[in-house]
């Protein structure tokens, strides 16, 4: 297990205050945070490349805080892979073993294992400059894993790749991590990426760790407005909880009142995920308890899907597919019915 205790980093525009994070052995932890300097520094601090002024880092009961980077057994893969441009793919991969003066047969064995694991036999003698983005990423992974590190750090490993390659590498990462059971910290600003790949997600923002949980928890039960926004829930409302005599739990925000399923009396925020909001031309008669009528105020086109913002008031966004959008013939100013279940309202 790797533990980050009260870690503080101060970089001017990026600060991290007393960050605490525990990553279990073999876990794939995604650190999710907004774009900008900082997440890389966090990884570099863990790797020992960036001096730590406050806080401690422990790995399996041993303190690493003051240890030199070459003694930590923590490998890092940077966003642009940082392959050694003057060395061939093979020389890149065995670099770590070479500098540790490993025996030749040991190097050959480790190289073969990496080559088979990542399927990069055909590019072994090429120069990094001639490789595609996906190939570079595989080589960087092979180089990082060849030294059999205790922890693998990935700095935005997918964001420099085109969408197709990105999916490939993502699957590759997942497969590798599962087969090697290597503790992995993966930093990204991309929520979807985090959801797709992480065993758990740590959301950082405003210089602190906001929430740590499974993708499901982060997605369905954000504990703060920051996390909710990051999880791309557009519908976030301030308000108060009210319990009626008939046993209903209500959330009041402005003029609107939502039925809420889970009771959380201290809550001051409610969020409804846009994909849980239904739009219809006629009122629906269903078990869903929240039914409203409003005018479409905005339509945000995202390609295969669209966000339809309806002014109740307040404004609520629904996510619909392009097919439903054209079938229903929605336009701005049109009056529509809005429906969502009480259990879709998450209060916090």
């Amino acid at each position, binding site marked *: 297990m790797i533990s980050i205790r009260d870690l503080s980093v101060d970089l001017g525009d990026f600060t991290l205050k007393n960050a605490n994070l525990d990553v279990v052995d073999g876990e794939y932890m995604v650190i999710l945070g907004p*774009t900008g300097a900082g997440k890389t520094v966090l990884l*570099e601090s863990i*790797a*020992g*490349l960036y001096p730590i002024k406050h806080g401690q880092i422990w790995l399996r009961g041993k303190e690493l805080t003051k240890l*030199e*980077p*070459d003694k*930590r057994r*923590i*490998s*890092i893969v*940077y*966003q*642009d892979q*940082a392959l*050694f*441009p*003057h060395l061939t793919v093979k020389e890149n991969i065995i*670099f*770590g073993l070479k*500098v*540790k003066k490993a025996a030749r047969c040991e190097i050959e064995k480790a190289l073969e294992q990496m080559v088979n694991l990542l399927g990069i036999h055909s590019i072994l003698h090429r120069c990094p400059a001639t490789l595609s983005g996906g190939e570079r990423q595989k080589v960087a992974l092979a*180089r*990082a894993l060849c*030294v059999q*590190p205790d922890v693998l750090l990935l700095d*935005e490993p997918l*964001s*420099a790749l085109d969408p197709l390659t990105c999916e490939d590498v993502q699957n590759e990462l997942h497969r590798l991590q599962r087969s090697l059971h290597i503790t992995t910290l993966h930093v990204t*600003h*991309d*929520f*979807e990426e985090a*959801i*797709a790949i992480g065993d758990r997600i740590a959301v950082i923002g405003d210089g602190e760790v906001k929430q740590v949980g499974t*993708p*499901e928890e982060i997605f369905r039960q954000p504990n703060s407005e920051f996390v909710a926004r990051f999880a*791309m829930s*557009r519908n976030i409302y301030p308000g108060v909880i009210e319990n009626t005599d008939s046993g209903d739990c209500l959330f009041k925000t402005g003029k609107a009142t939502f039925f809420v399923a889970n009771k959380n009396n201290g809550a001051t925020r409610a969020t409804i995920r846009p*994909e849980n909001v239904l739009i219809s031309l006629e009122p629906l008669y269903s078990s869903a308890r929240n039914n409203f009528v409003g005018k479409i105020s905005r339509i945000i086109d*995202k*390609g*295969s*899907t669209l*966000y339809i913002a309806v002014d109740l008031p307040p404004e609520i966004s629904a*996510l619909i*597919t392009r097919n439903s959008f054209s079938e229903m013939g929605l336009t701005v100013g049109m009056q529509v019915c809005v429906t969502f279940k009480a259990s879709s309202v998450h209060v916090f």
Partner: protein
Amino acid sequence: MGSFTFKRAEDNTSSSPVPDQKSAPKGLRWLHAGKMKIIFVFLGLLILAFITVPILKMILASSPAILLDTIFDSEVAASILLTLYAALIATVIGFILGVPLAYLLAKTNFRGKRLIEGLIDLPIVIPHSAAGIALLFVFGRNYFMGKAFNAVGIQFLDALAGIVIAMLFVSVPFLIDSAKEGFRKVDTRLENVARTLGASPWQTFTRISFPLAWRSIVAGNIMMWARGMSEFGAVIIIAYHPMIAPVLVYEKFETYGLNYARPIAVILILICLVVFIVLRLLVYRGEKS
């Protein structure tokens, strides 16, 4: 968890984190035949002619026979060899002492770094005869370093060692600056990765930083060597004898006149030209890769 069909919502900047440099246009496309361009080209040609015409004329005006005679003149040959040799020693010393400093300046941040960078470039701006005088105040027979070196049998006044320190002083900024640029261009993350893979600071330097900065360091060495070879002012103050080629040119000119000085000057220029062309080729190939 497989139902997230929507794409990243607010973050438009994330789609291309690496800017596409190839699409950037090269140069001002609208600057073609206007009046301004004609004037600028004319002025540029003037200064270009000013540089090349004297050199070309001198080279072309000397007959090959006289040049050959001159080169086999033992006095001339000895002075040219001495020049190359002394400049080489200066370059080796500059390499040993300068490259580590260049690495520190490129890869670390500390208070007073700008001051040190300024100090390194000082020899470029001060008059070289003044530099020679300044060196004598340290390496002269009656001064601190002069005495210390004298104890191990090294003298500076009118000696090879004096020529070397004069050349070293005026030419080492070129090596340090070039090596510094070379180290600066090495992506820090490459060095970081090397460390995490188990390389010690020494190994990281010898296997990553140095090989990647190598081209700039070699270019710096050649530049320093060429600059050392062409030094006159500082050398003549410390060591008129043994005579290096630039001093010989000066002496021939003073005692026999223009026609006697010219062949030696031409040979000197040709040697410098060869070194210079090698340097440009090296830099050009570096830019291409």
